[in-house]
């Protein structure tokens, strides 16, 4: 019989990491994602699977604990929300420079600064363009349901170890806090130390006579070597762009107009598509699931078919830049966003789509 439960998004990803064989979680409480740490503590991970759960003294310490564990070839993760993720950027850059696999969760809240605890999508640039110093990218997964919060734990770890890269699940306060049914999988056993040593020969597991010492570092003072390191990193990102793009097409086949949205906004647009169809507007939705790598080719294809695209985000217009880069002027691309923790309503975004592309007269847009 299937194991189906009603869970919060934050709880679902916590359960997901346990079941995908996670070895360690290091984190610091922050709203709206504290349930991740709370759930892991309450479920006694050490007794269940041997997984270590530790509350660190700060987000900075958390991410560097992740670094230490990841460098040992362990499946490790941390989670936080926007201000905490900003603090982690130093460590994320070091993880990128040393190509260490790990899972990161950002349950985004409104910013800038302390902002608000309500959902937002204003950390897109930070997640997708490389928020720390240096030329790097992470794989960024955008869940639009509690089920995906759960599923992306395993997917995230798998991608992280496949490419030796950091995977960030870019969620938001709504997906993290809302409850939906989740179908759970069987427990995947954690790797033994012997399996790790065999599978990940780069890991610092203790120097044995059969190999040279392993060093995890992002430092090379020789610029010629450092350039080669960087070029190889870029090759890896290119390879990921070619092989790991994920997206969902919703009523795109006959669409004349297109919403482009991820996460909570995609859920809103999904409803707006149905409302639009009821009004006789042939509208579809492209939902990027990976934000890096971005489904640029799919958007370029759709640009040949539709008359206009509306990028809907809970931000002042971040992802819209990638939509415009993807279609390269082939079709008008507009942005609609709500800020500071406000979520748009389905009829609101549909009205915007109509006013931008279909009706002559501009609507008086809904504001607070």
């Amino acid at each position: 019989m299937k194991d189906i439960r009603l869970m919060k998004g934050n709880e679902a990803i916590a359960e997901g990491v346990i079941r995908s064989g996670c070895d360690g979680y290091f984190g610091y409480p922050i709203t709206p994602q504290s349930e991740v740490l709370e759930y892991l503590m309450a479920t006694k991970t050490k007794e269940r699977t041997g997984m270590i759960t530790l509350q660190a003294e700060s987000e900075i310490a958390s991410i560097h604990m992740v670094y230490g564990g990841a460098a040992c070839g362990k499946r490790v993760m941390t989670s936080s929300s926007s201000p905490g993720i900003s603090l982690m950027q130093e460590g994320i850059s070091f993880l990128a420079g040393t190509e260490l696999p790990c899972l990161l969760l950002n349950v985004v809240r409104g910013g800038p600064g302390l902002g608000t605890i309500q959902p937002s999508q204003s950390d897109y640039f930070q997640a997708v363009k490389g928020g720390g110093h240096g030329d790097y990218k992470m794989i960024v997964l955008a869940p639009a349901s509690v089920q995906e919060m759960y599923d992306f734990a395993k997917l995230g770890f798998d991608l992280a170890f496949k490419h030796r890269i950091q995977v960030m699940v870019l969620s938001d306060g709504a997906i993290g806090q809302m409850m939906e049914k989740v179908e759970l999988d069987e427990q995947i056993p954690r790797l033994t130390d012997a399996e790790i040593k065999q599978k990940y020969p780069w890991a610092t597991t203790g120097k044995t006579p059969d190999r040279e010492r392993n060093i995890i570092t992002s430092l090379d003072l020789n610029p010629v070597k450092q350039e080669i390191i960087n070029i190889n990193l870029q090759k890896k990102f290119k390879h990921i762009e070619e092989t790991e793009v994920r997206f969902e097409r919703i009523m795109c086949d006959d669409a004349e107009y297109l919403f482009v949205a991820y996460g909570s906004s995609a859920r809103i647009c999904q409803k707006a598509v149905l409302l639009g169809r009821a009004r006789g507007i042939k509208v579809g939705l492209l939902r990027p699931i990976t934000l890096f790598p971005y489904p640029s080719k799919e958007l370029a294809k759709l640009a040949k078919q539709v008359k206009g695209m509306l990028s809907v985000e809970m931000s002042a217009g971040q992802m819209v830049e990638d939509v415009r880069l993807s279609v390269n002027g082939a079709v008008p691309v507009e942005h609609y966003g709500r800020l500071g923790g406000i979520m748009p309503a389905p009829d609101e975004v549909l009205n915007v789509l109509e006013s931008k592309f279909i009706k002559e007269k501009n609507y008086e847009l809904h504001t607070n």
Partner: protein
Amino acid sequence: MSYIPTREEIIEDHDNVVYERTCLLTDNPLSYCPGCGHGTAHRLIMEVVEEMNLQADTIGVAPVGCSVLAYDFMNIDMQQAAHGRAPAVATGIKRLMPDKFVFTYQGDGDLAAIGTGETLHACNRGENITVFFVNNGIYGMTGGQMAPTTLPNMKTATSPFGRDTESMGYPLKITELIAMLPGTYYVSRQSVHTPANVRKAKKAIEKAIQYQKLKKGLCFVEIVSNCNSGWKMTPEESNKWMEENMFPYYPLGDIKVPK
């Protein structure tokens, strides 16, 4: 006349060897200035790791600072940590690999300024790691700037008229501070500037490594050292200056020993 062996032949006969460089130091030439204490500290730690047969069980964490390249010299698995974060990195390692010997090797700027939070909380949680802390009262690699442990009135690149405690604060006795925490098990301050001190320092290092196996808390060995380049002195002058100025403020000896 009986055969007189050459010097090389005498050395080759292993029975005659009274002292050897530990095989856990690599052949890479040390990047430290002549006269600096880092090389001796590296050697002592690696000697103890070798004598305790811990090479396969050791994971070291190198900091940012002069010893950022410690992994070039120590023939063990090592991770390079961001500035000040070594105790957090070591926490991540030790929690997931509890049977390994995990140590950090940090300078004063790394451990007592930018990494104060990580240091204090790793100590307070009683992480079963060993911290080696080289305190020379200055930022060596960056070019001789003021450190948290710079003495009052001491001249550095960023306190060119001397450390004015009124505006720049006081030298931080972080070792005394962490010794007060219940999470630390063994805390000692040593130096490596004379043969006698080298022997004492090695004993402290041995204890700090041995005690980690007991899993009773964090072991901490500070090594007060010179920075002849940063202090703008000859090695000999710097050692004398250290004895006269650093040791009164940072007195040597065990600060916390197991009951």
